[in-house]
């Protein structure tokens, strides 16, 4: 059962990722991204990381909406100005570089010696919270400083100055 779920979701995830990069319309791309992120959330769920799955959905659902609005306001889907690519020659590099990356990927997947320790107490909210407030206390607090700085920065850039 778990294996079947994994393969169905995995195929869906890869297919939607392909759709994301192959579709020209940014709105369609964003919709494929939704599917992709949802599939990843399901994979988290199947690994027992319930909290992570829910957080993934909450965080990315909001992010996706911003992306939608951004795509509409900035890119105006359907009216892209597509001229000939000025760097056509560079495209020829895509194939060998892509093949190289694929070979690397294949080599990564082959040896099954991942040394990641299994999560100590599952992916529950409690164990995650305990980790955040003990072992990862410093990164957690540093994140708050980071967010404060980002907020100040946004205000600086967005504020209209009476001049």
């Amino acid at each position, binding site marked *: *059962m778990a294996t079947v779920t994994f393969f169905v979701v995995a195929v869906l995830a890869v297919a939607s990722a392909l759709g994301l990069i192959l579709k020209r319309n940014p*709105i*369609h791309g964003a*919709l494929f991204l*939704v599917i992709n992120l*949802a599939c990843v959330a399901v994979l988290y769920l199947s690994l027992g990381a*319930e*909290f992570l*799955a*829910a*957080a993934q*959905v*909450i965080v990315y*659902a*909001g992010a*996706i*909406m*911003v992306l*939608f*609005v951004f795509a*509409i306001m900035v890119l105006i889907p359907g009216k892209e100005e597509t001229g000939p690519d000025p760097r056509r020659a560079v495209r020829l590099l895509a194939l060998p570089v892509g093949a190289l990356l694929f070979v690397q990927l294949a080599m990564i997947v082959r040896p099954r010696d991942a040394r990641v320790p299994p999560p100590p107490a599952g992916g*529950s*909210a409690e164990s995650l919270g305990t980790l955040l407030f003990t072992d990862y206390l410093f990164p957690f607090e540093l994140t708050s400083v980071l967010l404060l700085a980002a907020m100040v920065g946004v205000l600086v850039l967005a504020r209209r100055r009476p001049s």
Partner: protein
Amino acid sequence: MEHLALDALAAFILLNAVIGMVTYVTLLERKFAARMQSRIGPYRVGPHGLLQPIADALKLMMKEDIVPRAADRWVYNLAPIVFLIPCVLIFATIPFAPRLGLADLNIGVLFFLAVSSLEIVGLFMGGWGSNNKYALLSAMRAVNQIISYDLPFVFAALIPVVLAGSLQMSAIVAAQQGLWFVAYPVIGQLGFVAFLVATLAAENRVPFDILEAESELVAGFRVEYSGMKFAIIQLGEYAHMIASSFLGALLFLGGWLGPGSDIPAIGVLWFLLKAMLVFLVVTWVRWSFVRIRVDQILAVSWKLLLPATLGLLLVTAFWVALRGGAGA
């Protein structure tokens, strides 16, 4: 395999129960609204108009399904379903009585918040796919509103979570055994009010219904939908509304707790009663208030609700810490 079949059966029953509830909640709302306006409401179809929802559903099903020629077909056609799925899915984690629910996840509240935040994707698909300026404007407004009200909604819902020390729905109800959270001095009442306001905004109800403001946007994102697709959107909207009422009853009003709630059937009755009470409050607001402007909506969220809920959450956390821990 047998286990799986049982789960599927339970899900099927719940799904139908939700659809049944939605159908009759519309009648409840119409009757209630009619009383507020000194009318009688639907009366002709069946005794006291009891068959009216069924007639409505049949009518919608038989209407012509129109797809605008310039629509983004795939997006347009999929939108109602994408909209409906999260609205129904959130019922999976709602317990109606002890051990009576599909899945009492240990992150229940979070699951609810996560899944219900997906609803906006379907809404946006509808607004975009219709290729109609009113629909698109409505979808943009919806995004604006959802992003603004997600945070106060989450913070308000977290107050009971902090009080109970758990994200699990049944544990939150159990923690209210002595006293419902709404009865906690100050934090309970203010939290509940903030929750209700945020719920109104999340459901895009009056006074936060600028996205379907009929005087300017005709009917908002669903202006191009007809027939069954329109019915599905309506279904999703009401399902979401009922689910939010259930959540409010669970988080603040003690869920199934009440005299005689040891018997599951009576517990369920209590729970439904409380949820309907929340629903009626929402409806009452709908028929009494006027629509407010976009900038006012945003101001209410960012300048009032967000700081207020954040402050409440802080006070709650302090209080729980002083008391020496969460729980009953």
